[in-house]
Each structure stands twice: as C-alpha cells, then as structure tokens.
C-alpha cells in the first residue's frame, strides 16, 4: 500500500487522453454516419427510411454497455478475429453516437419550415444544394444545444469502456484507488476532471440556447 501522489495524478491525466481519444473517435466516425442517417430518415425513398429506422431502433434499444460488450467480446467470437480494444470500443461509441446524433439532427432538419425547402427548390437548385445551403445551416442552429448536450453524455459515457478493461479516465481511477486504498480521494479527483470537461459545455449549450431562442 502507498499513498496517492502526483504520479497517480499524472497517470489519471495520461488516461484522460484516452477518454478524449474515445470522444474524438465517437464523433469523427459517428457524425458522418449520423448525417447519413438523418438524411435517410427524411428521404423520399422508403427503403432508405426503413433501413435507417431499423438501425436506430436497434442501437437505441441496446444499452451502451451492451454495445461495448458486443463489439469487444462478441465480434471476436462470431467473426473469429481479434480486434484491438481501441477499435472495438471506438466502433461501439461511434455506433452509439451515430444513432443519437442522427435523431437529434433529423429533428433539427424537420424543424426547418417546409416552405424553406419549397422556396429553395423553386429556384432550380439541386436537392443537395437545397439542403447544404438553405436547410442545414438553419437546422444546425436549432440542433446545436442538443448536440452539445449529447457531447456531455458521451464524455461521461466513455467511462463505461472501463468495464471491458480499456484504460481511460474511470479505469485509471479504479487502478489508482486499488493501489492506494484511497477510493474517496481518487474518485473525487476523477469526478472533478469529468466535471471540469462537462461543465463548460453545459454552460455553452445553455447560452447558445438562450441566444438562438432570442434571435429570430
């Protein structure tokens, strides 16, 4: 047994990097998929809507922990290939993010008045141009607070990766706690670090919401 020292603190911050990597992966892989899902959900082509809806139902209906277990333990069993932990966990978080962001963004897109699509289409520009230049900027404003709110959920959600042994902030906290027998102190520090990441985002989201509601 030893006491909690600055070296433990350093190991927490080292693990924090992996938390940030997970969040980045989740957004970098999940956001493009989320956009595709949102567009599929509002598509005029029915099978695209069905596929997107089925995917969303599936992913949203499985706990994040279940997704992690599936990609970490299940995929190697079913496919017979060993995947590095970061890949399995990264895919699980990307799937999770794509489903929730996809629905948030679909809501934003559908909140833009239908008349805006009509006005844009009557100018003779393509459907993608209508979306890109007329609908998306307005939808983004509407969906931004909820998107940041989801980001906060995601940051806290990455702590679940600890259950499959991935050493991110929460797992590093467990290790430090086991080594020092000072769980209260260690977990307080861990909680403080999560809070320090999430709190500014929450404030930002609130101020955006107030500002966007005020304008127009």
């Amino acid at each position, binding site marked *: 047994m030893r006491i909690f020292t600055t070296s433990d603190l350093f190991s927490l911050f080292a693990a924090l990097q992996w938390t940030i990597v997970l969040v980045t992966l989740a957004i970098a892989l999940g956001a493009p998929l989320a956009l595709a899902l949102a567009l599929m959900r509002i598509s005029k082509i029915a099978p695209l809507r069905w596929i997107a809806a089925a995917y969303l139902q599936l992913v949203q209906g499985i706990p994040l922990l279940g997704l992690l277990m599936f990609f970490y333990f299940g995929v190697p069993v079913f496919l017979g290939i060993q995947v590095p932990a970061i890949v399995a966990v990264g895919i699980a978080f990307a799937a999770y993010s794509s489903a929730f962001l996809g629905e948030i963004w679909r809501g934003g897109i559908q909140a833009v008045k239908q*008349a805006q699509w009509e006005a844009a289409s009557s*100018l003779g520009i*393509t*459907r993608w141009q209508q979306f890109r*230049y007329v609908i998306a900027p*307005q939808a983004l404003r509407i969906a931004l607070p909820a998107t940041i709110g989801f980001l906060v959920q995601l940051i806290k959600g990455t702590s679940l990766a600890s259950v499959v042994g991935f050493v991110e902030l929460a797992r590093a906290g467990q290790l430090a706690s086991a080594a020092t027998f000072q769980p209260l102190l260690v977990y307080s520090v861990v909680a403080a670090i999560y809070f320090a990441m999430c709190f500014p985002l929450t404030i930002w989201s609130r101020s955006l919401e107030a500002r966007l509601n005020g304008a*127009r």
Partner: protein
Amino acid sequence: MALVEIRDVRKSFGANEVLKGVSLDINEGEIVTIIGRSGSGKSTLLRCINALEQVDGGEIRVEGKAVRTDMQDLRQLRQRVGIVFQAFNLFPHLTVEKNITLAPVLTGKSNKQEARQLAIDVLERVGLAEKIDAYPEQLSGGQQQRVAIARCLAMAPHLMLFDEVTSALDPELVGEVLKVMEDMARQGMTMVLVTHEMGFARDVASKIVFMHEGRVWEQGTPSELFANPQTPELKSFISSIK
C-alpha cells in the same frame, strides 16, 4: 404557340378534387390574373405550373416543353419560371445579397465576382439597393416581399408566378409591392398572379381568369369581365368584393 399551355389539368388532394379539368393559355408578355373564392383551386393551378404540385391528369407545357417530375427537367423549368410566395420565404440565415445570389451562383448563371453587381441590379429594380447587407428579419414585410421578387428576378425568369403575394402584408405595405409588380409588367415580364387585389387586376392585368369550383368559369379582359360578367357566379363574386 403560347408560353404556357394548360390542357385539361386535374388535381386531387385525397378525395377532394381541386382542379377538375382546367385548360388555359398564357402568352408571352401577358399579365394573367386568376381570381376566385378561396378553395376554387387558383393557388393550386399556379403551383402546378412550376411543379410544386404534380398534376394527376392532363398536361402543362411551358415553352413547348412538358412539365415533368424528372429532377433535371424540373430544375431547368424552375430556372425559367420564378415564383413569389405569400409568406415571402426568404432564407433567414442569409443576407439579402446572399438570398439573391445563392441560386444564380449555384446554377452557373452568375459567377462570384459578378454576383454582388447582380444583387445590386435587381435590388434597384425593387427599390431596395440600400438593404443589400441586411438580414430578412431587419426588413418590413413589404421590403421582404420585394427582396423575394428580386431573388426571382436574379434568375432572369421567362415567366413569374405570384401566389397571393400581398395577402400577408399590412395594408399600408401593399402598395409598394404592387408598384414593383406594375413596373415589371410595364417592362414586359410575363406574369401570372393569384390575387385579391381587384384594383391591380383591373388596372394592370391583360387577362382575367375567374375560377370557380376547380374550373375556369370565365376569362377575358378586365373591362369585359368586370363590366359584363356572363355567369351568376362571377356576378356574385364581383359584388361580394366591392
């Protein structure tokens, strides 16, 4: 050949047949005003011309080309046929300039260097050049509608459709929009309007079309129709709006 040929057009919304076989010609340079009670199908007919509504039967030809729903045909049609809406439908996140230049730049009718000049030119035609950098929310309803007209003009359309463009305006703002439309009429723009402004219909229109229960009930010059209505429906309509 008429600029727009409408032949036996039918359109239903669910079980409600809104257009029951409408035929109408619109010639180049004509100012055609469609009047009638609400529910008579006049807005629907207008929206069929640029395929915002798809017809269930019959055919519409614009410049000899059938209006179809094929995406590419549709875009080309809409680049030639502009529409101004009752609710303006400006893009709230873009300045007046960007509202006007978005489509000309994206469709290759204008390049980025010429775009601002194009915006200035069309804004001068609606008397709003000084508002080029404003956002829609900073403008009055009448000004927004004039910008919407300018946005249409920037595409250099061969035909412009006006769907009750003064109905959402405060009464004191109606005049400025009608004046812009009168100027356009004088410059030879082919225009089709759905309107409740009978003064405008009487003074500016070259042809009045009275629609009733999804059909063209009567048509003719303003003096013919207003002075000498043939049907009891038009007589009662005219007396109800006086």
